[in-house]
């Protein structure tokens, strides 16, 4: 086998380029380069990004053998690795909780880990992050799925953390609040499948916020730089029974304080708002949504989904509230896209649409997706919508039925 048909093309490229190439290979291929030639033996061992995804999974149907194989692979790889590891991701795999993960976290905590993404699969208990994890001082991005976080008392927060994404993570409400507030650089926060009851978010640098889960109340305190906001609060029926309000969600304290007067701060950077499960029968909720919208002069995109728990009430009161809260001079000058789903045609929803159409001169598209199948109701809603004055000449309204 004559390999000397020309000079070596690639081995003498600078290590930084070799690393760039190796990082873009699936991890098994990257490690395989170690038998290419003498020079390549340890080139892979200093790469700073380790990503274990579905490509590193062997094709085998025996779940236990696969799990064992992957755990062994990762452990041995870490053993052979040299130098810092900045990125470590286990995603899209069926890796289940096992004791080896503790050792991996310990190893990473000693090797300057910056970006940790650990997404475990169904089956088995949630993985409890060991205490060494809280000593990862250089952590800038953290994403966990199916884990348990129990910070020690002495934990002072991750001073470099910019992005936090917790999905199906067990953590006490106090712990999560203190974690959020003790990470001064936090810019992106995403909590989903959460079942803590009350949450106060205090993060001065926060830009992207996504909350999804069973919350009783959410309170945004001191988040002036918010650019994107997405909130979906679901409530189980039994909790709802104990609530004073009849609504299924509680947005009242959302923007801080019990005071339902005008908001103190303007969210000048807020460009996208997504709110799910807003009940248009509860005045307080509508008020919160309205105030949020009117305090965001640069709002570009709005998604609202109505509450599916309504009892199709046709009686509604409080229409004077609309004139009071929405002065005719309020303008949403940047609003371009509006999407309203799960609209059941209750009177306040109609008023809301009227308000939006009337004060958005830059509106380009509005999509309305009704939740009811009855043609009569849909027709009634359409007829109402037709009446409204549109501030934008370019606005196109899509009434999407079916499906």
């Amino acid at each position, binding site marked *: 086998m004559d390999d000397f048909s*020309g000079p070596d*093309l690639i081995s003498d490229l600078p290590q930084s*380029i070799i690393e760039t190439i190796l990082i*873009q290979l699936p991890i098994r291929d990257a490690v395989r380069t170690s038998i290419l*030639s003498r020079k390549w033996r340890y080139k892979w061992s200093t790469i700073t990004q380790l990503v274990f995804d579905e490509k590193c999974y062997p094709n085998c149907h025996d779940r236990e053998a696969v799990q064992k194989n992957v755990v062994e692979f990762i452990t041995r790889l870490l053993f052979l690795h040299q130098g810092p590891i900045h990125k470590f991701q286990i995603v899209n795999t069926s890796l289940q909780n096992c004791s080896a993960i503790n050792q991996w976290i310990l190893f990473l905590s000693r090797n300057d880990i910056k970006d940790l993404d650990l997404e475990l699969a169904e089956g088995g208990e949630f993985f409890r992050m060991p205490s060494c994890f809280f000593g990862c001082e250089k952590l800038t991005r953290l994403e966990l799925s199916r884990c348990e976080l129990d910070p020690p008392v002495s934990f002072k927060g991750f001073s470099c953390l910019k992005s936090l994404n917790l999905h199906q993570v067990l953590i006490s409400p106090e712990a999560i609040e203190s974690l959020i507030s003790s990470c001064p650089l936090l810019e992106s926060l995403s909590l989903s499948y959460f079942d803590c009851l009350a949450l106060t978010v205090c993060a001065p640098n926060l830009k992207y916020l996504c909350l999804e889960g069973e919350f009783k109340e959410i309170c945004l305190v001191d988040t002036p730089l918010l650019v994107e906001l997405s909130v979906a609060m679901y409530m189980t029926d039994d909790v709802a029974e104990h609530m004073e309000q009849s609504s299924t969600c509680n947005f009242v304290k959302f923007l801080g304080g019990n005071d339902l007067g005008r908001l103190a701060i303007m969210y000048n950077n807020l460009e996208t708002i997504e709110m799910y499960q807003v009940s248009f029968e509860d005045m307080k909720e509508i008020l919160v949504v309205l105030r949020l919208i009117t305090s965001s002069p640069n709002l570009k995109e709005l998604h609202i989904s109505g509450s599916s728990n309504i009892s199709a009430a046709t009686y509604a009161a409080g229409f004077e509230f609309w004139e009071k809260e929405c002065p005719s001079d309020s303008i949403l000058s940047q609003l371009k896209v509006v999407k309203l789903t799960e609209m059941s045609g209750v009177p306040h929803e109609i008023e809301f649409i009227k308000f939006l159409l009337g004060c958005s001169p830059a509106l380009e598209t509005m999509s309305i997706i009704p939740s009811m199948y009855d043609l009569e109701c849909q027709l009634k809603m359409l007829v109402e919508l037709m009446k409204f004055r549109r501030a934008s000449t370019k606005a196109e309204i899509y009434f999407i039925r079916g499906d």
Partner: protein
Amino acid sequence: MSEIDMSVIKPEMMKPYIWLQTSDGSIQQVEQEIAMFCPFICQEIIQKGTGSSKNCAICLPEKVSPAMLSLVLDYCRFHQVPGRSNKERKSHDEKFIRMDTKRLCDLTSAADSLQLRPLVDLTSRTLARIIEGKSPEEIREIFHLPDDLTEEEKLEPLKNTTDDPRIRLLNRLYAKKRKELKERGRLKNVELEEEHVDERSVDDLLSFINGNDGDSKGSKTSKNKKKNRRKKEQKKNSTLTEASEVKKELSGHSAVSDKIAGTSNMYTEDDTFSHKEFDDDEDVDDEIDPALQAKIDRHICSESRLLQRIVGLPQFTAATTATAEGGSQADGVAPNPTTAILFRYSALLTTYDDDN
């Protein structure tokens, strides 16, 4: 980048063309706007003021040949236009990057030395796509890599980090061959060094430690007998599996000698731990001094044929099993070496049969 830098540049430098000198010494004129897309050239102009005339042309790094420079400039020419959409840029890149591997590697090198990060990313992504999914032989062929790992290095298992069944099989074969080589090597050496796993349980170790504290030699011996027997059984079993695997690879005759070699090695090697502590008290089953042991080793090869014949006789199996397992050498009489081997080998066979 460009706008801010442009504003700092003095007006007299805003000529439309600059001069670049490539690795071969030739100088060419290039539109300034396009060349400034490369951070290296940008830096040279701003910090050192070169490039404004043919005499003080910017010296490009040695990796940048004229051919590479023209490729880089083509890339810059397209991308420095601000109005293009992402889709356009992407499709241009896909076409641009179609070239043979050598040019691709040279281009990566050139782009890196000019600090043109987007082009480096593009070329390394392409190189990664070339490497992905290919076997080592294919990769070596594409990039002209020498196959220069020594046999020994290849024999070191790849730490199981690959899933390729061919590589695993290769490693298995190499491992067995290596063991065979090592065992043959051992036959020639009197000194035996081999690391092996100390499989004794904590209890064993504790009782060993306790047993070391001033007990009489006799009781020590008997305790050690048990421990060593257990140790031997474990070693026996592990060597047996090795031996049986080797057997599958190699044909009959040598396999037998391997087994025997394995046996003798098993009894003569001591891990350093027991060696230190047991200076006076050797392994029970080996109340044979080292010199005699060496003699045994040398006998092994010549005895192998004899043993093969003996193996067939059933009466040896029964009798010698009892003897071997009873550990009866406590009476201090060293048996005839050949017989000793016979006993052990037959006992081995019995155990092997049992395991089978």
